[in-house]
């Protein structure tokens, strides 16, 4: 029974990377706006006279990524709850939407930022990402990411170390299968590190907590999930940046 509580809280934001600290919903929202506008201006300055076209494109991509992030956050949150729902349900409906409302928007914003950062960094490094640039591959990547979350939620592992190791291996496999770029790896690591630190801080400050923290204040598999989430969103972002005309399939 205590696992339920743990999962309610731990998974509420584990599905997506957080690039910012959340101390309040409004503040985060405004911060996100600021961040996005900064990114937008930087990019549009870089492209000089094409400002309007570029910015419009960028905003559209950002919106798509935001939507993807929100949807994924909701779904994966549900997936985490489901573990307890299926087998030993207790107050399912009560906890379903009672977890903080601001988490999906934050996840969406973070997804937008990371998804825009990836192609930006690619173009700055001058090594365009050419590996498996097609929507089918991106869909496969998303499916594998959901699968990793599914595994972390549904499977019973003997101990935490085994769970974390398995998830780490899965995340690395995800990166290797769908990304294989150094920038992607670096950004993924950075995202995972940052997000974990932020979560640690949040938990330390008592915004929420884990029932069975085995890694300082949080669960040790959290970075793996963040990492694979970063890679997945980066993949989507790159694909969006590449084929601006193609719309993301209904997701």
């Amino acid at each position, binding site marked *: 029974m205590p696992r339920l509580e743990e999962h309610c809280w731990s998974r509420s934001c584990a599905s997506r990377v957080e690039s910012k600290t959340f101390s309040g919903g409004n503040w985060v929202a405004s911060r996100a706006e600021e961040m996005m506008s900064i990114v937008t201006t930087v990019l549009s300055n870089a492209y000089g006279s094409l400002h309007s076209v570029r910015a419009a494109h960028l905003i559209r991509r950002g919106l798509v990524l935001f939507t993807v992030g929100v949807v994924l956050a909701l779904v994966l949150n549900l997936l985490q709850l489901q573990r307890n729902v299926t087998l030993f349900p207790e107050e*399912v409906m009560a906890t379903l939407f009672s977890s903080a409302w601001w988490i999906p928007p934050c996840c969406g914003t973070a997804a937008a930022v990371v998804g825009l950062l990836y192609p930006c960094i690619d173009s700055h490094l001058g090594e365009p990402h*050419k590996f498996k640039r097609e929507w*089918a591959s991106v*869909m*496969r990547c998303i499916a594998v990411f959901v699968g990793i979350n599914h*595994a972390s939620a549904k*499977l019973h592992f003997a101990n935490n170390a085994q769970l974390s190791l398995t998830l780490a291996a899965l995340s690395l496999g995800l990166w290797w299968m769908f990304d294989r770029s150094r920038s992607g790896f670096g950004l993924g690591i950075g995202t995972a590190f940052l997000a974990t630190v932020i979560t640690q801080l949040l938990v330390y400050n008592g915004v929420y907590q884990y029932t069975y923290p085995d890694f300082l204040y949080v669960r040790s598999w959290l970075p793996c999930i963040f990492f694979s989430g970063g890679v997945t969103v980066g993949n989507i972002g790159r694909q969006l940046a590449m084929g*601006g005309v193609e719309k993301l*399939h*209904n997701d």
Partner: protein
Amino acid sequence: MTVRERLREKISAAFYRHGLLCASYPVPIILFTSASILACCYPLLRLPLPGTGPVEFTTRVRDYTVPSHEPQGDLGERPDWYRGPPVAYIQQVLVKAAVSPWDSTLVPVDVFRSPLGRVFSLLEEIRNHVHNDGSGVRSLEALCLQVTDLLPGLRRMQTVLPEHGCLLVSPGNYWQNQRELFDSDPDLLKTVHQHEPKGLHTSATLRDLLFGVPVKHTGVSLYSRKRVVTYTITMVLGSYDARFLSSLRARLRQLHPSVNCSLREDHMVHVHFKEEIGMAELIPLVTTYIILFAYIYFSTRKIDMVKSKWGLALAAVVTVLSSLLMSVGLCTLFGLTPTLNGGEIFPYLVVVIGLENVLVLTKSVVSTPVDLEVKLRIAQGLSNESWSIMKNMATELCIILIGYFTLVPAIQEFCLFAVVGLVSDFFLQMFFFTTVLSIDIRRMELADLNRRLPAEAGMPPPKPGPLRPREAPPPPRPSPYTITLQTPAFRNLRLPKRLRVVYFLARTRLAQRFIMVGTVIWIGILAYTDPAGLRTYLAAQVSEQSPLGEGGAGGLPPHLGGASVFPGAGGDPASTLSVLPAPAEPTPLPENQSQGHHGAPREGVPHQAQAPPLVPQISWGAEDEEGWRRLSFRHWPSLFSYYNITLAKRYISILPVIPVTLHLSPREAIETRHPQDTRHPPPPSLKTNDLPADLTFIGTYGEGSKQVINPPSLSRVAALGLAAGVLLVLLLFCLYRVLCPRNYGQNGVAHGRRRRGDLPCDDYGYSPPISEISPLLLRGHSMDIECLASDGMLLASCCLAGQIRVWDAQTGDYTHTCHNLGGGTEPGGGVFDEDEGYPLRRRTTPRPALFEDQPDLTPLIDTNFDSQPPSHLLLTPPRDGFDFGGLVERAYLEHEPPSPGLTASYPSPSPPSGPPPQRRRSLGAVWAMELRGNLIAAGRSSGKLELWDAVEGSLRCSNEDGVSGITALAFLNNRIVAARLDGSLDFFTVDINKPLGLLQYRGPPGRSNIPPSPCYSSEDVISCQLTRSVQCAHQKPITVLRAAAGRVVTGSQDHTVRVYRLEDSCCLFTLQGHSGGITAIYIDQTMVLASGGQDGAICLWDVLTGSRVSHVYGHRGDVTSLVCTTSCVISSGLDDLISIWDRSTGIKLYSIQQEVGCGASLGVISESLLVTGGQGCVSFWDLNFGDLLQTVYLGQSSDGQGVRQLVVLNNAAIVCDFGSELSLVYVPSVLEKLD
């Protein structure tokens, strides 16, 4: 490396043959595949539909009250279904019985006969138990769930399950709860087994129901090692009475005390069975399915160039889905019932298995040359991709194997499914999909043949060699082309890291070894950990194998010796233990004790028989506490469903079990024996040796009772599966040998167009895959090709000598020559064409050995403004050595201040050779040429515009209105635009004096995106009138002129680009943005305008508004040519770099380094195919990835002639100049894409 090569060759050869087989016998193979799919899916029919599992809730027995119907506010952890009374209370009496001590005179049937016989007395005891206290008398009859009738249709259960009265099930039901029937039953196991369903087991069999424990835990077997029989008596109670139950418990305990039993008895478990899947579970499921469908959609969208796209996509999906079904079916068949929720893992399985192989196969097959026979195409396509397919499969298996070693049960099960799924997917791809593909390709070929027949009707019979020179003279150059198909390099380019790893694995055969070792280990683990399997067998065997036994059993066959020999007396337990190998160590404690019981108390048998408590043979463990958990979760629903009671959305309460321990003396066991039991005694010789071991009876007892052995354990299943697999492979191999004649590869050769003798092939008709792109050399020009023009049907070329030749662009046939004398209107013009004054007919061109005879080469200026940067013209001296550059420069200077009125009569004041020679010379050089319809428009350096009839080779008309050399021409519809050296732009109209209705339209409709050009026949009188002349269109010479979509775009040295409307010659925009002269312009039907300049910048413009869309600096030096596709811009520069830009973002995607001097020639064949010229070769590139697909050498390797011009024709052929020759290269793979 050689191992890899050999392996690769072998795989390739095998795939080739397999492709031939599939394409040769499509219908039988599809039938065979469908049959195997159905056969593998058959077990699925018995599998219950997937649903959610039951939910548990535990309460304490002590203060249990039936929950009320009303929700009682906040009751803590109480689930919302825990409301109201349960359907039933389940009270189980768990009986463990053993004959102790085990006497050596007992036969194996004694293990369970007397223990089972005790069930009747127990039943009697339970039925007759009456609890009497102050409130009244209670008996089981009053409390139990009264059932009335079995469901109709369960007649076979009628004799076994109670049909009225209490629902009380026990093994005694087999004998109608009558001791007499039991005693007179000669073969108990047969009775038990005859009620089992034949074939595969469903989740809850009758045996499970009656025994109440899983079959392998019952111990009712001839080969039971523990000799402990376990069964339950299950009472289903309708109402709960704590006092009755506790008194019953106390009574049973008193009668049959279980000394070492410490089962907890304070918890009852409520199990709720679900029926519907809730929203919360559904949403993630739906999401994964959406992702799955998106994946399938995006994958199958990539299938193209086939006859029926949807058909193939369907086949691909069917392949994947049926491979999954097959995997589940096979796993079920081999006894691995899935515990995972099938619906949840299904999308992940699909994603793991993937559609990639199918797509790769399709792509590979459709990119084989279309003129091959279908089965050869299939075979070649298969063998091209064989290596990568095998590699991918090995990699995936490897990954899955790694996943298997995480040792998490769920992941292991997933991996098991995935492995079987992968293998069956491979099977289906090879048999099903390949065959479907071959059928599709055949259909396409038929359609293709029908369409192309007219065009090919005139084709001569196929020439023997791949090289088909169109030239009549006898000495053909021997094999002037080499072909390199660079599939490995193409792969290398994209995935170097993965390749290196996989190559390493393949080189060292690590993957194979790893998989083999892993499989062996896995099978070993399975066999060893299986409780009924190897470990206990080993332990028992080793313990029985004592040195003392050897003497007694010396004469026995070895396989019996180990099992049957047991020391009669004096066996030393210590020595027995000392020979135990390591595998015997982790045997569970109870077993050890029972083993020890055999060895040690041998002498004290009579005493111990009187003292049962001293023999702790029966142990109670935590797993007995809730023994029902080991049953299928459909156990209770199926029991209740027999009586038409559903448990969906209801719950039952399971009370703590009542343990009952029974120790039976050997005497009792012997007394209860049926006479038939001793009919199968151990053989007398063994009996004298006091051998109780069970294996003895395999030989004697086995035939009659095959069906009573344990359900097949995993190890046996694995062994069986392995054997079956080997057998299947052998069978297939034999079938293959019988079915396939060895020479079907040659069958195609007999009437094929290709002579196989040229290719290295073995006697199976296999030849290494080669590319079939062969260039067609068009010879006839005596000097280097200067201009090329084509309208898709005809091809006109002009060499430095001013000779224009016309070729058939479809076949490469030489048509005729337009020479300057042909029209007869220019008496002085044909100075160097005298020797060709007779009309040339097709294919009779003598090899021109004219080079020495050329009287004057001075007018041959290498100034083609169409394709060469002006800087080239201005900065480099003409290669022929005479000084013309100064003249041109002077001309520039003279015309820089625009003086339109003077131009016509302006005499050049100081040319080195004077005006007349200049005038005379300038007649010859054709600087620009265009071909539309049957008209060739040629612009000469003298400023003269000539119109030639391309069919007849006669001059139709000419216009000498301008004197400045025509640097560029555009011919659109009936208008000709000529750009001149002085920066002026002339618009001409071609008038045909003929009613419009008589115009014939020519060309394949729909094949090209430009409107078919009118065909001018020779009867018409054609006149060419200057309609408008824009004198100062540019300040400096016009370097580029392009026309499309009703616009004429000019680029000039003066850094500007101008856009004119074609109809009224009106200047729409002057586009400024370059900081150097314009050197390249691209415009197409969709009004995309791109320009490149000497500053290396590329600008994209919006033609409608005249605004600049994008501006990038791409090259050091001039941009020499520009092409746009819908997604990218391709540019080449003087720095010999070809850069590919994203059109929407302006980001450079990648660049290709070209050979020196060949940078300018490039063309786009389709959206994803780029062709570039090189030194004596043309290269094909995949635009999406920048991979080199293929290089076609035009002549003898590396004779250093660069391809400077390259024209892409509509029929997916390309024409390029190759010195004095033209080369026509067909690109077969994109032939169908234009439809």
